[in-house]
């Protein structure tokens, strides 16, 4: 993916640490698009999770398995259907959603397989992206979106507002929402307007509407305030 790592003190990507903290210790977790297994490693070793991965790139898979993680080489667009319903407490899609062929189906599968989904993606509504397009007239090139348009796996980019609308469409509850400000600092979601302009990336904890709703920063807040 095109994510530039923000390394924390321990040399671990800050966004991965943040995600791992959202997972209750000892949970069953599936990391879709797990790369070389960095997040899985944290989940297994720091959070005591029973964590598995699915990764497209052979190099990523082999690196993960060689470090003792349970990872399957496969394509999330076609292979998520193989996983059992409610097989996991959390299914994580970190910086992968925008590379999926069928985004809607992917989100449905995520919440079929897991009781909760944790999804992060680059926000195309971020003010720097808007400025680059408006002033430069070129495809944006930011810290998060750092690959040229002709060489990016990101085929379905969206804004945070787009994503929230899609969740609404699919009957998905946003339990928690965060954005990364530039520099990788995770901030509470706040208002949709703020998040969509100042968030470099969005990070959401999702569940289906019929699940028990959890009071969150987002729930009940009117959008676009």
């Amino acid at each position: 993916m095109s994510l530039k790592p923000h390394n924390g003190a321990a040399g671990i990507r800050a966004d991965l640490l943040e995600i791992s903290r959202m997972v209750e210790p000892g949970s069953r977790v599936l990391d879709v698009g797990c790369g070389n297994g960095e997040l899985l490693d944290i989940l297994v070793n720091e959070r005591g999770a029973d964590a598995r991965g699915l990764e497209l790139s052979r190099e990523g898979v082999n690196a993960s398995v060689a470090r003792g993680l349970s990872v399957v080489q496969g394509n999330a667009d076609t292979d998520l259907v193989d996983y059992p319903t409610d097989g996991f407490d959390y299914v994580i899609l970190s910086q992968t959603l925008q590379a999926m062929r069928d985004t809607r189906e992917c989100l449905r599968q995520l919440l079929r397989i897991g009781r909760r989904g944790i999804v992060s993606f680059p926000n195309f509504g971020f003010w720097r992206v808007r400025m680059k397009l408006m002033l430069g007239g070129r495809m944006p090139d930011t810290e998060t979106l750092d690959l040229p348009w002709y060489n990016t796996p990101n085929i379905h980019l969206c804004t945070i507002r787009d994503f929230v609308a899609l969740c609404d469409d699919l009957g998905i509850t946003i339990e928690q929402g965060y954005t990364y400000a530039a520099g990788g600092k995770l901030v509470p979601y706040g208002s949709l307007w703020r998040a969509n302009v100042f968030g470099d990336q969005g990070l959401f904890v999702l569940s289906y509407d019929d699940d028990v709703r959890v009071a969150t920063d987002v729930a009940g807040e009117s959008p676009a305030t």
Partner: protein
Amino acid sequence: MKSGQNMNATTPDTGDLAVEGGITPLQAVPFRLANGAELAEVNVGWQAYGALNEDRSNVILLCHALTGDQYAAAPHPITGKPGWWDDLVGSGKIFDTDRFYVICLNVLGSCLGTTGPRDANPATNDPYGLDFPVLTIGDMVRVQAAFLEQIGIDQIFCVVGGSMGGMQVLEWTTSFPERVFSAIPIATAARHSAQNIAFHEVGRQAIMADPNWQGGAYYNTGKRPDAGLSVARMAAHITYLSETGLHVKFGRELQDRDAITYGFDADFQIESYLRYQGSTFVDRFDANSYLYITRAMDYFDIAADHGGVLANAWRDTQTRFCVISFTSDWLFPTSESRDVVRALNAAGADVSFVEIESDKGHDSFLLDVPEFHDILQGFLAASAQRRGV
């Protein structure tokens, strides 16, 4: 090891490697096979390296392939060649004998220690020949389980094997799931494909077309179907390699000559190589064993044993899996491994799956493929940590 057993302990020259083994009678006889037949006597040829730990939790079971044998890490008694996984088994190696008790059993139906069609039928004292019952991969594994129980092993830390060995690994995890902590099925499938049955049939027909085969009753005639078995091996050997591998290794290079001879001598290196493979094979392998073991592979179909649904075979499994395939393997292509992985995922199993890039074809699991070795190492280390071995 329990004492007081009837076994011929072998002490081959294996350097520092501690080896035990021999040919040991199975106590759980008569042994009933899947087809209903019973064997009144079964011997098991085996080798083990390393030492059992206090709670017998450090056992690695190696399952050999079609023409393999129990000599995984010690020199073969007939060919004198190093064991088939000599690179992987030993002190400080991937299957570390300082840490694990690594055991390999010759399969039922074979000809290197474990009872097979060449052995005497206790009812007649003549070799079985075709009176030997047709067996299955399941039968092989049940013999292994009974034998391991006999020597006091009821928990296997890791069962691992490639090709037909991989079939046994899968069978172990479905027949004795509670005994297997982790499993590494390599370059294998949950069922034998039509193409693979076809290749086996060519091999069997080559053997049976050899007049020296004599309906399988050749043992005391001074003649044996070497020509047929050799052709069977040549045809099979092609399937173990890849087109790229053959091209890189042999191309159209000529054998000890500067020009083609306009004849049917082995002009090309590949011909010479295959002829050599065929001719040396007959010295170490029995033609009837080849018929029986290929048949066992043909009959292998795990889904068929579980209501036609492969995932049912692994419901509630607690075994950790690492499924491995190779890009250039066209005998057991990646798609076959993927079917296994799909079923394991559906069953909620803890599974890893890697496809390793190699141009060495099906035989990659026996060759020096560093990435493959890294995967084995990583999976074993993580499994050992969880098991507390």
